[in-house]
């Protein structure tokens, strides 16, 4: 195969994997650290896209708009944790149902404010030519950002006070309390952090996906499966799972349609779960 074709394929594959990482990392943080399944994760993502849109239209530089949007969603996450999630820890079905109700509300609220149709946001950065192929530089950015986000999560959990406390609280809740860690506080911050990451995902995807109130639905299924197949290891799990499922998705999508690519991803995930019920990183017991 020609060099340029190879590069094109590689970039295409990496982009798919990176998108999976980006949409999943927020959910992985919340699920891996707290065992919470947030069915409104897709809507946090959607809010990130809409906030970016508003920011951009208000005159902010696109990149700044994205950062502000992510932080804004983080704030929303904080509120959601205080008002809803904190009462439901340990109750899996209840959390799923309540966050599902939340997602219904969020979608409709956005429809009321922005209207139901797709909004446009041009892709910043242009294209570049590699041999016979032209590829979007934005995709390269996405790949870089995916790596950066993994790095960010690593740094936050290993080098900050909050991160160390949160990990202690996840490993041995009683002992963490015995050394003064306030679990309520760390839980709140963890959920907000996960929401911020979800918002960032939405912000990043806004230029390349259609920004519409229902966009969360398109991502939540894949994000879920990536996180669950990945297992409790927030970083190792997500990265390996995204790599595996992303490759399946990419290959099948190129050969058939993107619909079937998603279906293949989901099927492979189901089979993997059957044989590795605790996920790829489940056996190793790694937390990150």
């Amino acid at each position, binding site marked *: 195969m020609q060099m340029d074709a190879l590069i094109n394929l590689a970039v295409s594959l990496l982009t798919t994997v990176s998108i999976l990482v980006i949409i999943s990392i927020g959910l992985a943080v919340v699920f891996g650290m707290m065992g919470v399944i947030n069915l409104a994760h897709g809507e946090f993502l959607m809010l990130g896209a809409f906030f970016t849109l508003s920011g951009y239209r208000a005159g902010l530089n696109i990149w700044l708009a994205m950062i502000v949007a992510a932080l804004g969603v983080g704030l929303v996450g904080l509120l959601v944790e205080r008002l809803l999630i904190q009462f439901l820890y340990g109750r899996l079905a209840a959390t*799923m149902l309540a966050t599902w109700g939340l997602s219904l509300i969020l979608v409709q609220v956005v429809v009321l404010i922005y209207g139901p149709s797709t909004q446009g946001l041009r892709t910043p950065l242009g294209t570049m030519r590699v041999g016979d192929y032209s590829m979007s530089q934005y995709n390269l950015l996405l790949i870089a950002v995916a790596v950066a986000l993994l790095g960010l999560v690593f740094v936050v959990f290993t080098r900050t006070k909050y991160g160390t406390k949160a990990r202690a609280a996840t490993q041995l809740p009683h002992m963490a309390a015995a050394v003064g860690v306030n679990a309520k506080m760390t839980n709140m911050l963890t959920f907000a952090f996960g929401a911020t990451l979800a918002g960032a995902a939405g912000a990043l995807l806004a230029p390349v996906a259609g920004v519409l109130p229902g966009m969360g639905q398109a991502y939540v299924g894949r994000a*879920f499966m990536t996180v669950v197949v990945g297992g409790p290891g927030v970083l190792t799990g997500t990265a390996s799972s995204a790599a595996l499922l992303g490759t399946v998705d990419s290959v099948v999508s190129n050969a058939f349609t993107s619909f079937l690519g998603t279906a293949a991803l*989901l099927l492979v995930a189901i089979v993997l779960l059957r044989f590795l019920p605790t996920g790829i990183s489940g056996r190793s017991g790694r937390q990150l």
Partner: protein
Amino acid sequence: MSNTGTRDRVKDWVRTAGRVPREALYLAVIATVVLAVTGALPEFRAYEWTLWAIFGLLAASFAFVWGHAGIFSFGQAAFFGIGAYAYGAAGINLSPATGETLTALLLGTLVAGIAAAMLGYFIFFGSVGDVYVAIITLAVTLVLLTVMSSTADPKYHVGDALLGGYNGMAGIPPLMLRAGTALDTRQMFAFSVILAAAVALLLNILRRRPFGRILAGLRENETRTQLLGYDVRRYKLGAFTAAGLVAGLAGSLYSAWGMFVNPSVFTLQQAALVAIWVLVGGRNSLLGAFVGVALVQGLSTALGGSGDTWTPIILGSVLILVVLLLPDGVVPSGLRAVSNVAPWVASHRLPRTVRSRLLQRESTELRDVLAARSGQFKPKRLEGQGLVKHFGGVKALNGVDLRVDAGSVRALIGPNGAGKSTCFNLLVGRYAPTEGHVRLDDDDVTRLRPDQRAAMGIGIKMQVPSYYGALSVFENLWLASFAALGKVEDSNRQALRVLRWLGMDDRASLDASALSHGEHQWLEIGMVVAGAPSVMLLDEPTAGMTREETHKTVDMIRDMSQFTTVVVVEHDMEFLRQLDAPVTMFHQGLVFAEGSIEELRKDERVLDTYLGRRPSIDAAG
């Protein structure tokens, strides 16, 4: 739960077998009312209410699989959809030839049922945790959504039925009972409501049969159910398949009602709606399923008038509020509130006035309890030979030979970390030994799991109390009996006998969670005894008991030792002194001393090991 301490619950149970279920009566009443009312019903109402009945049936399937069996499955919508599409395909292909669509109805139901059985097997026989059941069923629903949405091309078809992608399958025939005559709207209404009611009532009968009782136990405490010897995987598969069949039937009716189906049946909205209906109506209530549908759908329709925009917000808020404030659901909470005012409303059971003959002649002989399995009591010898257990680098047990003769009692004691718990757990089957064997009489049980050992007659009571808190004391004992005896009547008798032996007659109808701590321990001992074991393993049975309670427990164990072999792990010196049984003391993973408690008391070396005096101890004693 109404706990009037009466024997209503017991009698109700005992009389389940061999009489016409009251559900038949309910069905007759419902059918009469429906048929009477149908003629007067405006057509649009009949059309709308048919849908509610169909949704109600779908909700009932979820109430059964989740509320009753405790399996949180997002898959009911998927089986609903499968049934719908299957009816469509079967109907389109077969009805021109046969002139009826009952076959299609049957086929739709069966296809969904088979899909459920296959998925269920995949899930439950793969030891997947609860979280993952929810996730896998969610994923399957999503896969179906994705796949069915991309079948727009005409090459995707089943016979003459085009799958139709996003737009769905059109041209589905309505329900036709015979030769070309379709049911009109009102007839469809009557048919659907009566059928839905019949199936829901069937589910209710199922809940009261042993299968359903065991599912309830499974829901309440899966570990305990396993330890009693039930293969929980098969029961889960059964419940899941039953629910799949019901959902499939609902789906088929749906197709027939609308004469159309599209992939929207597989969306997350639909799956969540099922959950909303059941949450509103009451998790474990089949009637509540229909009420929930009526309330939620009624609300949606009412709001639909003022614009679709508010419906999702209201639905979402309802979901959140119900989850936070009314975890049991609207109907049960409502019933509870009403029953505080008017108690007779909540008790939908008619009081029994006729005593069953069964209850009169019960013997309280423990002998009969323990002989129940095979007609005579048969204590067995339990042996551990050359038991070694290493956990990674830790040598917990270094070569222990233990022999407990049939019909004797033995206490295992020793300081922390000495190996008595490890040895006990090897006897229980919680782990397999690194080396060595465990034998029951001449059978080698070394490789068997605890539930398999339970089936072989080793009764196990673990340290942490594990019983069915939300079920009555009687039901707890019944489930234990049924696991060993397999027959409803025999289990009734057994449970009653054990109840008498425990001296807890007056507690029969109480929820087990209402018992005192000591009574919990006795209940569990009772549950072990009810299984008519040939060997009983008890881990700290007097933990947390008062002096008097300990005394009674000693008496119970002495009773038991006449008919079965008993091995006890205990710290409580008072208990051991009263029991006055041979003792095996562990230290550093080996048997350190054996003898009576008095002999060990006098032994200075024994005291030294308890005090941790290392210099004077060497492992060989």
